[in-house]
């Protein structure tokens, strides 16, 4: 390759990481831009993958090592691409990099405990609190502290905060609330866009009780609840009273395949719920899980995963969408209402907790790509196949394994752009 070409990869989730390492290992320079202070995206927040039920951290760790040892990959975290101009082979991109507000050369969390300010922990979907100066999570890459500037600025004149800053300085950790964002312009030959997805906003599902019933959570929250590094250290207990969950309901298609919400199937929620049913059964052998579905979709080889999970007679499948979720005001049990289609009777059942299987909404449906020549479908997924290349869930809902394949394909497309063919 004559002269090193550069690929810009936007989004540091599993798709972006994959596209970045594949392009870099093929000989390109890569700039990887991530909005959050760490790489890994939604996958970092998962407890286990289906169908192998292995933890995602091992796969992430391998990829982080590939990034770390590759001098051709530059990672910008807390960074956003503001503008892209040009054409394949000659793009200019502006990247805004926000400050971490904390400089940490010790990779220690010792000072974090002294931090007087607590903020909701986004990594755990707000189910617990974290310090305003913290490591995003145990396996974070880069393994650096990050501070929440807004939260700290509110208390910066209090004596407690001043002594905290002092004690940090003594430990070699410098907190600098004056730090400013900077914008850099880079010349790149091609762009891969992999900004992924967000869980559909469950508060919009007015009848399903999220936000009004204490023990209604979403499937992404269930991942954190079951995770050893989650808010409960892996104890699957109810948010209302910390009671061990014995009877768990899964509400499939919560806002999916619904013209009033996400009209499409997110393709992974059925398998995610089957997987999460195993979390509960492994954690509490007495417990039972009931999955209420319209159609259970386990495509391809996932059929075998479906077979394996449903052999468990304490994982019950009931055909019929749940329409209403209410709460017993005394016990805080949740009451689900639907129709059991196979028996033709209405369902009114009580559970300890309910998990809403919400779908994947592409981030590009909310924040369009600030560059030329990108087209979208009705739901905000990227459909254009030339110019800026979509990868992973930016293109359509898909599971992690498919994201890896798709991102590898996107990396190849990007490489083709760099040689002008």
């Amino acid at each position, binding site marked *: 390759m004559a002269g090193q070409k550069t690929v810009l990869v936007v989004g540091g989730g599993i798709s972006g990481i994959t596209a970045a390492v594949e392009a870099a290992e093929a000989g390109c320079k890569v700039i990887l831009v991530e909005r959050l202070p760490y790489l890994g995206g939604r996958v970092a927040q998962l407890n286990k993958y289906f169908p192998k039920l292995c933890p995602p951290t091992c796969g992430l760790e391998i990829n982080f090592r590939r990034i770390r040892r590759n001098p051709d990959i530059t990672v910008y975290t807390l960074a956003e691409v503001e503008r892209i101009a040009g054409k394949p082979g000659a793009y200019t991109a502006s990247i805004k990099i926000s400050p971490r507000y904390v400089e940490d050369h010790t990779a220690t969390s010792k000072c974090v405990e002294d931090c007087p300010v607590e903020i909701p922990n986004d990594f755990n979907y707000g189910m617990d609190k974290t310090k305003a100066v913290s490591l995003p999570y145990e396996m974070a890459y880069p393994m650096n502290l990050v501070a929440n500037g807004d939260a700290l600025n509110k208390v910066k004149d209090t004596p407690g905060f001043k002594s905290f800053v002092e004690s940090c300085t003594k430990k070699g950790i410098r907190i600098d609330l004056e730090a400013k964002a900077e914008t850099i312009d880079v010349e790149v030959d091609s762009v891969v866009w992999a900004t992924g997805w967000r869980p559909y906003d469950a508060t919009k599902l007015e009848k399903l009780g999220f936000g009004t019933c204490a023990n209604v959570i979403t499937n992404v929250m269930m991942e954190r609840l079951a995770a050893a590094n989650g808010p409960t250290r892996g104890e699957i207990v109810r948010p209302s009273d910390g009671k061990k969950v*014995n*009877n768990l309901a899964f509400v499939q*298609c919560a806002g999916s*395949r*619904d*013209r*009033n*919400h996400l009209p499409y199937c997110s393709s992974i929620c059925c398998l995610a719920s089957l997987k999460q049913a195993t979390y509960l059964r492994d954690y509490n052998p*007495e*417990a*039972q899980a*009931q999955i209420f579905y*319209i*159609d259970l979709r386990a495509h391809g080889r996932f059929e075998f995963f479906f077979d394996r999970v449903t052999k468990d007679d304490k994982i*019950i*499948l*009931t055909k*019929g*969408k749940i*329409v*209403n979720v209410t709460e017993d005001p005394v*016990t805080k*049990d949740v*009451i689900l*209402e*639907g*129709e*059991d*289609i196979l*028996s*033709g*009777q*209405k*369902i*009114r*059942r*009580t*559970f*300890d907790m309910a998990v809403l299987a919400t779908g994947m909404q592409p981030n590009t449906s909310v924040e369009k790509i600030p560059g030329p020549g990108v087209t979208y479908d009705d739901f905000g997924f990227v459909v254009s196949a030339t110019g800026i290349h979509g990868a992973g869930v930016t293109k359509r809902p898909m599971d992690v394994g498919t994201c890896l394949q798709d991102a590898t394909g996107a990396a190849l497309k990007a490489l083709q752009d760099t040689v002008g063919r």
Partner: protein
Amino acid sequence: MAKEFVAEPDLQFTRDVIAAGGSDVKKCYQCATCSVACPISPDNSPYPRKEMIWAQWGLKDRLVNDPDIWLCHHCNDCSTQCPRGANPGDLMKAVRKMVIEENSWPSFLGGLVGQPSLMVLTLGIPVAVVLFLVYINGGFRAPQPLNYGEFINYLYIQGVYTFALVFAVVSMVLSLKKYWANLEANCPINVGAVRKPFVPSLIEAFKEILPHDKFKECEANNIRYASHLMVFWGMIGLFVTTAIVAFNIDILHIAPPSRGGPGTVPIKILGNVSAIAFVLGLGIMIVRRITQPDQAGNSSYFDWLFLFVIFGTGATGLLTELVRWAGSAPGAYFLYAVHLMFVLALLLYLPFSKFAHIGYRTLAIAWGKSAGRDVTLPVVPNYAPVPAQEGGAEETPQA
């Protein structure tokens, strides 16, 4: 539903349902949101999810013998919450139209009233009859002082309208008898063997219908309940008024209120209050159908024909009175003639138009009472694991 069943799909029926207004039925993917969204659907075999799949599969025998289609009051909660836009409310309405056609006696009239292409004939018959009455009474004249009996002899009116009423009642009764027999023989809903007798069931149905108790439970669309209640009681009031006036003229031989006969004031109050409620209620229905089709549902020819005739009846009745007060005799006579046309259409087509719901719905509600359809299943309590050695006590959920 363990018994063996051989499906006999009738694809023409599915096409007919689609043509009759259930045009989105094929979008349904059987999630059952509708059955639960409906505030008045019974817990055992709730509607309209099952009706949707029967319609998709062309299971005509089931649908036309399904009393549940009449339990639906078309509040449209199911359609607004439907994730697919399959509009179950419209399907139910379309099947109701087909049931009216299916059971009509004589059957050709059922076909006539439901056919948009035959509208001229449908509306032409009552117009022609009244024009004929005007003609044989000496053409359009405006005798003063105002006396409708001079314009068209009451004997003619009584002859024609009594015949129309008797015809409507006989036809309705025969249609309903057929329908009831079908329900008894072929109803697709599993009900227990113990059945309440007909008359007590009918009385129970009346107790629900007169105050519109069930209709009131369609909370999301309360205006629909209010307007229907107004029309319902308005019509009863008008019927009573007409009956009293006819009785006064025919039996007691005293002058009608329009000519200041004795006992005029209470009759007038009853008549006018009823007429205003009637017209106002219908006005609300029409305005909502035009301005809020998403809540009122798609309106078909069948809906509009009935609304046109019944609203026309009320509106021309009121206008006739107003014009008479205003002192225009020719105007009053003209409107009186038009009013007669509307009344004749209303009576004549009672068993074949959407008006027939008055009979079918009453009967279906009575059938439901008789079969014990008002089931409310209890909430299944939370599952709590029991220690293994005790065994057996734990509740086994249905898979």
